[in-house]
């Protein structure tokens, strides 16, 4: 009994306190040192060298003079505009119906008995006159690059087997070997032949060989680019419009004819009258002149190269002549004679053709 009592009294004293259990931990993120890259001091040096080799201001004066002369000469039939701010890149757009014989690639005045539409001193057509105008620039530039784009949207070729064998010479590769007898193919050939004819006339006017690309934009090129249905929808919405109604939203950009358009364009009816033309992109590459001054510091530290760059940039004449050579459109791109829906050729010796850049500079890039 005594034992039982002792056990019973001892029972409540048997408890213990909680002892914490360890659990999983959240590890710390360790700092990993990461060094900076060396500063691009060599690039700064290159920029400074470029800064000291500037295009002479007289080159711009001459380019502006040539531009005005060309506009005076062919401005009735062609729009001539600068691409960007520099006078070293021109966009010339000439309506084809006035300059070419209908359905043919021959320029008005080419054939005996036909009267030239545009004449100038030494030129019998707009492209030759353009070349004549550019001739004054030859002493001032290292090279002249030209891209000629023929547009013949829905133009019926004079012959289903239209070909221009005499214009297929002189290119890095001939655009086609045998003319197929379909209207569509003939339309594409007509587009290229007009571009080739225009570029030959331009080279004749210039009197010097230039790197040239000839591109033919036939009906199929415009079909792929123009949202004719969008244009139709917009036109219908306009027709249904009643007084007081909210005007419909602008048509999609792809529902417009390629720039520059004209008043006779009716994209809703499938007509882009302005897409019967020849565009010429002219790029003048000026020769930079060597600077006669050097940086007043010799070091190559980041501080030094920035000082030298600023010292060059801060010259007043530099601030006024910051216009640079336009980007080249030869050198990288396609070497094929067929790019998408169009024929693309380049004169012998010219580099690959950057068709996208040409389109972008001419305002022909597909709208987004």
């Amino acid at each position, binding site marked *: 009994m005594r034992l039982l009592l002792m056990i019973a009294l001892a029972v409540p004293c048997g408890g213990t306190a909680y002892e914490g*259990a360890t659990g999983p931990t*959240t590890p710390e*993120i360790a*700092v990993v040192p990461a060094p900076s890259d060396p500063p691009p001091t060599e690039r*700064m040096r290159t920029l400074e060298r470029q800064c000291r080799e500037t295009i002479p201001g007289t080159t711009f004066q001459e380019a502006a003079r040539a531009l005005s002369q060309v506009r005076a000469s062919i401005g009735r039939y062609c*729009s001539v505009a600068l691409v960007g701010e520099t006078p070293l890149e021109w966009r010339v757009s000439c309506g084809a119906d006035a300059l070419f014989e209908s359905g043919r690639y021959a320029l008005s005045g080419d054939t005996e008995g036909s009267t030239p539409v545009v004449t100038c001193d030494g030129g019998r057509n707009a492209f030759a006159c353009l070349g004549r105008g550019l001739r004054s620039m030859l002493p001032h530039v290292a090279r002249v690059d030209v891209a000629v784009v023929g547009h013949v949207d829905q133009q019926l070729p004079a012959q289903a087997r239209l070909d221009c064998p005499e214009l297929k010479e002189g290119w890095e590769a001939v655009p086609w070997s045998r003319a197929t007898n379909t209207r569509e193919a003939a339309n594409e050939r007509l587009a290229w032949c007009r571009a080739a004819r225009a570029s030959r006339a331009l080279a004749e006017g210039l009197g010097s060989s230039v790197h040239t690309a000839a591109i033919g934009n036939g009906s199929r090129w415009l079909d792929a680019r123009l949202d004719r249905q969008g244009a139709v929808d917009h036109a219908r919405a306009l027709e249904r419009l009643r007084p007081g109604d909210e005007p419909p939203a602008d048509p999609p950009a792809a529902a417009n004819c390629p720039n520059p358009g004209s008043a006779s364009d009716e994209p809703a009816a499938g007509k882009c009258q302005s897409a019967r033309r020849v565009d010429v992109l002219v790029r003048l590459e000026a020769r930079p002149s060597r600077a006669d001054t050097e940086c007043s510091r010799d070091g190559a530290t980041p501080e030094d190269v920035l000082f030298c760059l600023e010292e060059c*940039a801060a*010259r007043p004449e*530099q601030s*006024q002549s910051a216009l640079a050579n336009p980007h080249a459109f030869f050198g990288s791109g396609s070497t094929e004679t067929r790019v998408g829906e169009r024929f693309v050729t380049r004169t012998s010796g010219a580099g690959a053709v950057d068709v996208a850049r040409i389109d972008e500079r001419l305002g022909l890039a597909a709208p987004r």
Partner: protein
Amino acid sequence: MKLSTCLFALCALAGLAAPAFAQPRCFGGSEPAAAPLTLGDRVRLDSNCQYALDANGPWRSLTNRDTVVDVLAALGWRDGMQATAYGRRTDAPTEVSSVFVDHCTDYVLQAGGAFRVRPGARTDALVVERTSGATSCGVDRIALTFDCQGSGARRATLPIGAQSVELPECGAGWEVQAAAQGEPSYPLGRLAAGGETPLQRRLRDGGTLLRPDWEGERGLRFVPTETDADAWAELRTAFAAGHARLVRKRGATAATACHEESADVVPLVVTGGGVAFDEGWLASAMRDLYGADGVRFAPSLSMLRELADELHLCLAGTYGARGAREGTGLAFAQAASAQELVTRYATAELCVTHVAYDVTPNGLVSHEGARQCVAVSDGALLAANAGAVLELPEGSVACNGNTPIEASEGRVTLSRGLVDVRVGTRGGCATFETASLGRVGVVDPGHDWIPAGLERGGREAPADVPAWSGVFVDDPQSFAFVRRRDDLRFRMTSPEGFASAWNHPARGAATAVGQHAPVVGDESGRFGHARPSAFVTRLTKDATCPVGADDVRTAVPAETVVDGVVHAHLVLDDGRAPRCLAHARFRAREPRVVSTLGRSERRQLRIGFLGDARLGVFFSEPQPAAIGALLPIFYTDLHLKAGFLFEVSVPLTAAIAWEDGRASRVGPALMVAMNWGYPEIAPRLFTFGVMVHAPWPHPDDTVWSFFGGINVTSLIDLLGGR
């Protein structure tokens, strides 16, 4: 002399000149043509003609305009349009003529042009002078006007006949206009003192320099916004040269911060791809905010955004070649599009499908809970039980400190720890160069919810409830507690870093995470400004999760009668909606129970010493009855339904015989009894049993008796005595 000839002669006398090219039709000539005109060249409009700014129209009549700029102005020409006016006769609308501003005009200020620009005597001053003898492009007939825009707008002119003009410094550059006498002005562009480097030009043009990008070597970096590679190369060099730096100063404008000595310079890692914060600096910023635990998680999106607001990009005004010039201070948030840090994830959500647990002596029993989603832009911080399922936003990863947590189809089953959901970068979980989209503190009730007020000594608990190990067990579903010995007090542990993150003042959380999960009930009133605990324990009579107002009112204190059941609920209040994380069940019992046997709550055999004392009546035949008491020294009982309890015990008994008042039935006995009482109010109040005992000391005592009595402990409880 014809009238037109007279007019041109008069014009020449007046300083205006006849153009070098033949005038086109509608502009003074007879044939359709295009002609360049310099400023001041005369035109003669034709009333039979219409005019337009585009060869396609719209066409309108025009009179009384006599220079090309005048005509252009009348047609609504603006700077940026081609400076060409078209004209056509109404009777020959297809024959369009045009005149345009000679392109030489646009370049008269270029080097080699009709005007020469050279440095002035003072810093950044310019002198514009006419080149002697220059008459081309009609420059001898034009005056130049210079306008300095910005603060303290100024104007200067170079009139016709004047040789030069000195222009003082103009930070924004001079806007130059040219005009022949009496005609509207024609814009020639901008003239700045000294050219600019690519970066200086980029800064003048304004806009953002950088934008956030998560594709850096380690993760977050700020990359140049555009393809101006020269400006970017210059900025990198400027950082290396100390001409560009990033400083941190809260509440200051960039202009003042860049001039203050006390502003902290932020160390950067500048690579060809972009600019990144130094990782050590980020770690230090995290420690400043969160203490030592700050290095267990990445900075949140909102923290980065706020950090960006305190940063300023300071650029030297000059590299030393242009004299003393004021530097440029840019608010980093604007210069680096810091807003994009959060806008990219503005609609992203962090979702957790919760799970709740019953904590039982046999381990955890899970129940699926509700799905909870929060926007990551709010700096989401959730708490969840282990076993909950986390859905990761697209492009994110889940980390526990520096350790990646494996996800399956964008889902992660959570384990205990602080889960940091971060923007997925190349640095993975091992870098600070990322952003935390949200954090989830994952607790495990078996580990973290600790019944700290209970004495231990029972059997070891299963592995999934280590915090409950040693707590006495009453039945397979219930833990035992003894009123006089145990206290239903609970402690709460939480994963490292969780409390730091939760309690950070910037979060403004309504509750705080501490070491307690205090028992709360229906207290009302004001309790000061300290935040209540995020984890609380609520005690109720039933197993329903007590998160409603009514539930709180019915919450019961821990003092309950023997055999009474108390449900404890671990409730999380995260400021959104209180939620039960876990539940445990306790039964009150006598203090000296040494063991329980049985697998069910009902058929539970309890073995103990020193049970409840009873007062009652002993009776047997033929002896007379006696009044007495018994105290079980050893007992075992079995719970039955409806308040019945079967008992076998070894009590000590003592009684006084009813008839003669002599002692009776004194000594040990063996009793088999049935108890009954009203559960929860007065359990086992009545006892009726039969016992075998020592027939001593009353001479009439026999070895057996019946006993009917009242449980003294229950009676005192019923009377409110304890």
